């Protein structure tokens, strides 16, 4: 969209960078703060005017994380659960999104809005019936209990549907003329074309799953089945929280997300760019 200039200099560009850097610093503050806090000894945590750079650096906060709770086990649980939930959500939501955006069947729009209603009710008021369903299934403290109820994403259906609607329907018609069935059209045409949206949704689903707290707390009871957000909550006590250890744990939890984000943001913008209609 930008015009190419041999040297990247212009007043507008410098102004833009200036603006982005200013906003960027504000955006980075909490991140810097959480790193700084994670390295502080306890007596520096209470300071009324906190120092950004700790007077004494205490690396042991990071090893304390592993001493307080079985963090490694919890970490692995989160990885397993997140992988399956993300794949499940993308697969189920994209198939449904294709049907909602490309196929005609009775009740389609009503069903679609009903799915959205799933996003409009706070989890807290549904928790008891859902708890009982888990009890009847015998899924407490299991991976299937953590994973399966959360692989149905109305958010994903809606997001991918919108993207599919934006793809010129000529692709669909052309494939249909060649005798492809809807599943083939979905898989061979729409999925590759929607790569940026799938990458975006995939990453957001992964993020949501990694940070999911309420369900993870409700369906598990033993320490061996807990997931990261529940583990982090365990660092917050009734009367006292060592914020340094908490932040150390939080940073350990966040770090892989940033790596994954670096990878995804490329997919997101450098996926298959539509080449328009020929």
């Amino acid at each position, binding site marked *: 969209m930008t015009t190419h200039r041999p040297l990247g200099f212009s007043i507008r560009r410098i102004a833009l960078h200036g603006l982005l850097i200013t906003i960027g610093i504000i955006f980075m503050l909490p991140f810097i703060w959480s790193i700084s806090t994670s390295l502080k000894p*306890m*007596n520096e945590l*209470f*300071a*009324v005017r906190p120092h950004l750079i700790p007077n004494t650096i205490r690396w042991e906060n990071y090893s304390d994380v592993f001493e*307080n*709770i079985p963090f490694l086990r919890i970490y692995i649980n989160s990885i397993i659960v997140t992988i399956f939930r993300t794949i499940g959500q993308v697969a189920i939501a994209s198939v449904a999104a294709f049907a909602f955006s490309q196929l005609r069947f009775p009740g389609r729009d009503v069903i679609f809005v009903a799915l959205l209603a799933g996003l409009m009710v706070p989890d*807290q008021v549904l*928790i*008891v*019936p859902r*708890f*009982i369903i888990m*009890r009847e299934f015998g899924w*407490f403290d299991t991976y299937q209990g953590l994973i399966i109820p959360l692989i149905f994403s109305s958010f994903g259906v809606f997001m991918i549907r919108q993207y599919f609607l934006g793809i010129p329907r000529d692709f669909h018609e052309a494939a249909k003329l060649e005798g492809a069935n809807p599943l083939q059209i979905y898989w061979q045409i729409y999925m590759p074309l929607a790569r940026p949206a799938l990458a975006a949704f995939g990453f957001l689903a992964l993020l949501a799953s990694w940070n999911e707290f309420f369900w993870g*707390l*409700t369906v598990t*009871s*033993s*320490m061996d089945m807990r997931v990261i957000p*529940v583990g982090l*909550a*365990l*660092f*917050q*006590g*009734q*009367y*006292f929280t060592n914020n340094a250890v908490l932040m150390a744990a939080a940073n350990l939890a966040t770090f892989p997300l940033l790596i994954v984000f670096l990878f995804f943001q490329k997919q997101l913008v450098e996926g298959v760019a539509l080449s328009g209609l020929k």
Partner: protein
Amino acid sequence: MTTTHRTAIDRLVKRRMSRRAAMQVGAAGAAAGMLARVPQLAGAQDVPAYEGEEATISYGFWDTAQEAAIDAQIEAFKAVQPNITVEKQIVPWADYWTQLQTAVAGGQTFDVFWINTANVPVYGSVGALLPITQIVDVEDGIDTSLLPSSLVESYAFEGVQYGVPRDFDTIALFYNKDLFDAAGVEYPGEDLSWEDYRALAEQMNDEGAGIWGAGMQTSGQENYTNYVFQNGAIYLNEDLTECIVDSPEGTEAFAYLAQYFVDGLTPSIAIQQANPVADSLFPAGNVAMMTGGSFRAGTYAALDANIDVVPLPYSKQRATAIHGLANVIWANTEQPAAALEFVKFLHSEEGETILGESGSTIPAMAGKQDAWLAANASMNAQVFIDAAEYGQSVQDPVVGPAWQGAIAGVVTEGFAGDIEPDQIATEAAVAANAELGG
């Protein structure tokens, strides 16, 4: 209209009504049936004694700081009852009650778990807890004469004992020795009246240096409840149906505290919102004195700060809010005998000794508190243990603790200056009554 007509119509109406009522009951019942095998009041019949059968029970609690002590207790219990396996289930504090409610409603929860006094009437009144009367004050059972009596009473509901305290906490006055030294003021004594306390706060207040004389927290347990009790006021009437804290004594207590805010002797509410007194302003050395709980002693002892502690100031009488946790048993547990056995062990000489040795909390049993004192040797922590003698519990109605939240809301507004100091108690009572009556 003749009588016969009338009765006929009545009967018809009645039948229709009852059919409708039946449908409604049916619908609610369907939901209920799905929801809960919530027990209807378990009778007082005794659970048959444990006879060595294999059993697995879960033990729910929230404090990771006590995990090591609990591991040791479970280990020791295993030696006594090798056929009972105890699985610990730790729930984060912030979500503990929510989880418990959900699990009880969902019909599957911990066999044995921690509870606080406020929740005993709530769960006890609906039969969700198993009475432990059969193991209390019997031969080889739990000896309540070694425990703080006000707490033992708090764990009974309508004459049935559901638990006994495992530990307790009381409130005392922390002060920062360095600040007193710097100001050349003598440390607070053991014998402080409200007036003495106020005079000390004025003496220590130094706006220029950013030092407040007193740190008035917004918490009831650590702050205003103590003053209410000291002035001879109580929160609720005998039936626990009405809030009577708007008595002259209650009114005076809240006005006394609010005056500290008016006169700038304590950090304002806006400042406390960003910098909680107990977690920031006091340990950082911006506040000279603060009334706080025994549970803070360990944290403060671990800091380099020079902090010591004396008994709370008093007014008409000495008083402190006392609180403690109990182990209770879920009424629907499949292993009531094993659960009773475990609870009995936790409150036995051995169980309380192990808890005491961890130094993580004050064990409820008299004589087991040395390790806790040793862990906080840098201050005169004995005052917390001595305070148990004049400890007073907050009353707990069946409707739950919502009324306490209502009072906290009003008091915070009062401290922020939105309510006149002498009106705080009145408005607090109004707000609490709305929750109690509702």
